[in-house]
């Protein structure tokens, strides 16, 4: 198993001369840019981890004249707050990443979809955008970025739900295929990337693919911004090289009594103490959009699970039955077991239900409820029952 240990990195928040990066981009061909991103090994930083270069390549291959770059700033996963920090501190690098993506795929329009909870940032972001647009004019780039605001729906972080929301509809995920690369927002070829992915792309163009790919492991190249919260003396945002174990993470951020780490938020995986040593944080182990929540031995994992299920029951868009009914039944089910109204073996039935949701749900929300459910129930069964 390839390991890197815990290393702090300062790429994402590094202050750079964006004009230099944009000028460089201006003189690169679409193919050059895509090849650079492919070589870097960059995978999507929102959680799903699709190779960014491939996404751009597929969108670039579409013949349509009208294409879009969408920045997914609908950061709603419980425990992530890094995109807000990135936008707050280095929005110009996000915009820069969008221009690079635009040049790569042949798009002239970018849309940032910002979650409604971050509306307080908008005046500042718009001001920076104005300055950025002036810079684009100076260089001669034909690219315009605009903002769309969300209104408090977690599901809109799902790419196709996000498109629906931009179009003024209910944020209900679409059937796939077609994928966004061929039919995204307004039915046009679209590349949609997370805030951090776009900044990473800008850094790759600036420093080169090779220097970026030296960070991390074979399956998880580069660095990642982690949002650390829960029972930790040092909550906050930390950029770390990928490839560390959960143990190494806990050694740095734990309070000495960590019994579990929830990696990847409510839709992620619960790693119990006995697995800290052998679990890598990255695509070869537990993938994460950056949410890292630490729980110490004073916490009831029943409360944690109940909180997550309550979250999903509310945030399920209700469009497909496995997710709509499944989330509610899982919630009711654990309550019944806790109260002694159902036998402890009922938990096995609930795990089967979660597995069914994984297979039968339409989008990532319903498909990933089972991640936390299974890992918490399997590792902390007695806490759920008694």
């Amino acid at each position, binding site marked *: 198993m390839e390991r890197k240990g815990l290393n702090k990195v300062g790429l994402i928040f590094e202050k750079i001369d964006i004009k230099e990066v944009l000028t460089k981009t201006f003189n690169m061909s679409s193919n050059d840019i895509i090849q650079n991103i492919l070589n870097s090994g960059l995978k999507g930083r929102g959680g799903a981890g699709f190779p960014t270069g491939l996404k751009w390549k597929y969108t670039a291959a579409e013949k349509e004249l009208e294409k879009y770059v969408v920045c997914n700033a609908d950061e709603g996963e419980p425990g992530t*707050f890094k995109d807000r920090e990135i936008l707050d501190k280095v929005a110009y690098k996000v915009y820069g990443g969008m221009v690079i993506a635009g040049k790569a795929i042949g798009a002239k329009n970018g849309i940032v979809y910002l979650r409604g909870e971050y509306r307080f940032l908008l005046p500042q972001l718009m001001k920076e955008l104005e300055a950025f647009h002036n810079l684009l004019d100076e260089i001669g780039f034909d690219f315009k970025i605009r903002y769309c605001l969300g209104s*408090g729906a977690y599901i809109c972080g799902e790419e196709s739900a996000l498109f629906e929301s931009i179009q003024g509809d209910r944020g209900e995920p679409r059937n796939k295929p077609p994928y966004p690369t061929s039919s995204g927002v307004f039915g046009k070829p679209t590349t949609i990337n997370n805030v951090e992915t776009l900044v990473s792309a800008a850094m790759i163009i600036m420093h080169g693919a090779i220097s970026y790919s030296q960070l991390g492991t074979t399956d998880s190249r580069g660095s990642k911004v982690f949002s650390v919260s829960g029972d930790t003396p040092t*909550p906050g945002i930390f950029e770390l090289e990928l490839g560390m174990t959960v143990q190494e993470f806990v050694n740095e951020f734990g309070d000495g009594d960590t019994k579990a780490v929830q990696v990847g938020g409510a839709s992620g995986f619960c790693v119990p103490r006995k697995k800290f040593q052998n679990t890598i944080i990255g695509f070869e182990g537990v993938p994460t959009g950056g949410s890292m929540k630490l729980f110490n031995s004073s916490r009831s994992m029943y409360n944690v699970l109940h909180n997550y299920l309550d979250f999903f029951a509310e945030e399920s868009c209700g469009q497909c039955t496995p997710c709509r009914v499944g989330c509610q039944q899982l919630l009711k089910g654990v309550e019944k077991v806790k109260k002694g109204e159902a036998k402890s073996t009922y938990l096995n039935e609930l795990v089967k239900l979660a597995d069914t949701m994984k297979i039968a749900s339409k989008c990532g929300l319903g498909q990933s409820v089972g991640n936390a459910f299974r890992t918490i129930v399997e590792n902390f069964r007695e806490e759920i029952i008694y």
Partner: protein
Amino acid sequence: MYQVGNLVKKLSDKHGRKRESLMPILQGIVEKHNYLTDEAMVEVAKELDISAAEVYGTASFYTFLDTQVRGKYVIRVCKTITCSMKGKNEIIQTLEDILKIKVGETTSDKNFSLIETNCIGWCHKAPAILINEIPYTELTPEKIVEIIKGYLHK
């Protein structure tokens, strides 16, 4: 109840009259009046030339596009895990005591609404709330009393 007047017209002039203009228009109404009345939604439907059911369908999907009466200041208390671990209940208790309303209710002077919400992205500074769009973090019962006092004098 409020009179929507020519606000819908103004917002439509600003954001356009296409389907994609719907969200920013509804958000603009909520920003000014805190919630959407049936009349406001019908007005938007007329302006965009779509069915009122379409407008309601979109509005009712989004938690921040309230279709029931909300106060001038909407207090949303994060109830997701970290805030819940770090004292959300004490914050709710304090707010209920000073505003004399329960979660989900609006004060009789229509100044404050108290609701719970899902993760607002301040887990490292929990517990956190939003009052309209402004976040307040690392709250204690003492701090929240001071914050509300500030709003009472606005």
